[in-house]
């Protein structure tokens, strides 16, 4: 059995920052593994650890060489090997939209032929929340989105992913999804482990295979985006907080009259 985990190195913005052209000035960015992907990696490693037969966990990322440090940390936590897709054409692409990423990942899926693909629900930086399910559609897999519980035995023994999906309003849906499938993993599904020192040492010699567009049988048209960023700006924020003095009753009365003044509630 093979598990493919899509992981992304995301940019985290410092509290104070400036915008340069269409992005946050890189001076104010730090990079780390996408939080949702941490949970996806943990689910994949737990699958492998619970299995009697060999389960290979492969991670795939679209990212520059810098992202290898982040990928290594996933390898240190138990991922067996990694694929990193990048080249000059991707670097030159103005914006990688969901469709572009899916074309690249689709080609990797064709090479790797996984039984199950785990992806974070969304990326912390660009936040489209679409890559996992769009990939499922492209490769013809079943899919389950926003999975917050996964029955590992079902995946390993029955070829079925029995999942809980988190819906709005505190409702959980229980779904059975036949493999092969893509699951987008929600935070909180598990408790991601820390890499151990031995894991870190072993990760130094695990493979991170670089792949270019041509390695994947693609050309620059694969990263031609139909989506263009037109502007990025920081909205003006207005802070207009009122603190109501007094005990709870007095505060509630003051709040009620303030709300009525704003037109909330019946006269």
């Amino acid at each position: 059995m093979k598990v493919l985990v899509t992981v992304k190195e995301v940019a985290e913005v410092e509290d104070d920052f400036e915008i340069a052209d269409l992005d946050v000035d890189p001076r104010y960015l730090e990079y780390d593994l996408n939080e949702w992907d941490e949970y996806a990696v943990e689910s994949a490693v737990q699958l492998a650890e619970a299995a009697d037969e060999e389960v290979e966990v492969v991670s795939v990322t679209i990212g520059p060489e810098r992202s290898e440090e982040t990928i290594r940390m996933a390898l240190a936590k138990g991922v067996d090997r990694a694929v990193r897709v990048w080249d000059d054409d991707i670097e030159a692409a103005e914006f990688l939209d969901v469709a572009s990423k899916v074309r690249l990942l689709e080609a990797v899926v064709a090479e790797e032929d996984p039984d199950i693909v785990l992806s974070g629900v969304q990326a912390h930086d660009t936040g489209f929340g679409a890559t996992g399910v769009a990939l499922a559609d492209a490769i013809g897999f079943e899919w389950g989105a926003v999975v917050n519980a996964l029955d590992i035995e079902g995946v390993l023994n029955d070829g079925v992913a029995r999942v809980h999906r988190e819906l709005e309003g505190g409702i959980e849906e229980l779904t059975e999804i036949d493999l092969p499938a893509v699951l987008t993993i929600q935070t909180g599904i598990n408790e991601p482990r820390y890499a151990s020192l031995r894991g870190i040492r072993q990760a130094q010699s695990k493979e991170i295979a670089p792949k270019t567009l041509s390695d994947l049988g693609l050309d620059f048209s694969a990263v031609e985006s139909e989506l263009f960023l037109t502007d990025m700006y920081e909205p003006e924020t207005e802070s207009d907080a009122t603190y109501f003095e007094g005990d709870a009753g007095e505060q509630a009365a003051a709040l009620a009259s303030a709300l009525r003044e704003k037109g909330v509630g019946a006269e």
Partner: protein
Amino acid sequence: MAIADAGSSLTDEQRAIRDVVREFAVEEIRPTAREADETETFPEDVWDGLSDLDLTGLTVPEEYGGFDADRTTYALVNEEVAYGQLAVATALSVHCLATSCIAEFGSEDQKETWLPEMTRGRPVGMFALSEPDAGSNPAQMSTVARRDGDEYVINGKKQWITNGQRGEVCILFAKTDPDDPSSVTQFLVPKDAGFEVGKKEHKLGLRASDTTGLLFDDVRIPAENRLTEEGKGLSAAFHILTGGRVGIAAQAVGLAQSAFDEAREYAHEREQFDGPISDIQSVRHKFSDMATQIHAARLMVREAARQDDAGEDPRTAAAMAKYFASEAAVDVTNEAVQIHGGYGYTTDFEVERMYRDSKITTIYEGTSEIQKDIIARGVLD
């Protein structure tokens, strides 16, 4: 400027280890610090976490399941664990002293008996050199291990034993001849051999660490528990302590860095005279001094570790690093409290504990005065 990276030539592996241990320190160790200090209770869950990360086998050879870290990695781990909480770092480094002694001087049987389990975190190790009347001068010790057939019979009292209550395996130094100061020998004494644990000391800082005395009253151990030849114990202790000293220096750096970071955050937030106090020159210059001291101390630690890893004699550099870094930790935590003003004097702020914790670093594992003696020997004789 990323101070922690400055001047370093860390490998990718070392960098990754530093990052993971820092994350563990911030997420798992620091949140336990206040209660552990208040209640004088060691955070055992944190210890189990250290074990999961392979840190309790840091200095154990790989063949016994350990990580066998180089000295630079050892220093990085000590710095980051201390960034979370000094008492945890101290407990870990003493455990590592004990595993180092067993790995270096123990027989094959002893290594197989103790090291795999100690690598997994328990039993916890102790290192019993100091006595009530023999601190900076261990040769003055009065604990005696008298040979009696296939056994040694131990009598005496040890003092300032870290992990005294938690620990189960004691590396003990005792004279085999009470009248011969050069007869100090190293032994391995399991707690179930029957020594008594004294009362827990109530301390200014490092309160989560259980510091006790140990009382040996006709405690019998098999002769094969002798780790060094008779009379070779003290040089063995000094050898192990030289490496350990780099770790203690690194802990002082981690403690100073944690106080610096707390003060930095506070100075940006605290507003006086119509702006954050980090805009006021007298405060800014404090940060200049603190950052310079931390940077210098860290580089001294790295250089001492490099010398050790390169097989050079690191004694002088290790003593300089321990002396400078521990005094810097006292200075930096002091200024961190000052920057917090009255708030820094309360237990509501972390710097209050860090200030109390810092003082021990100039005292234990060789006082600043002893470090200066070692440095003077290195540069004069």
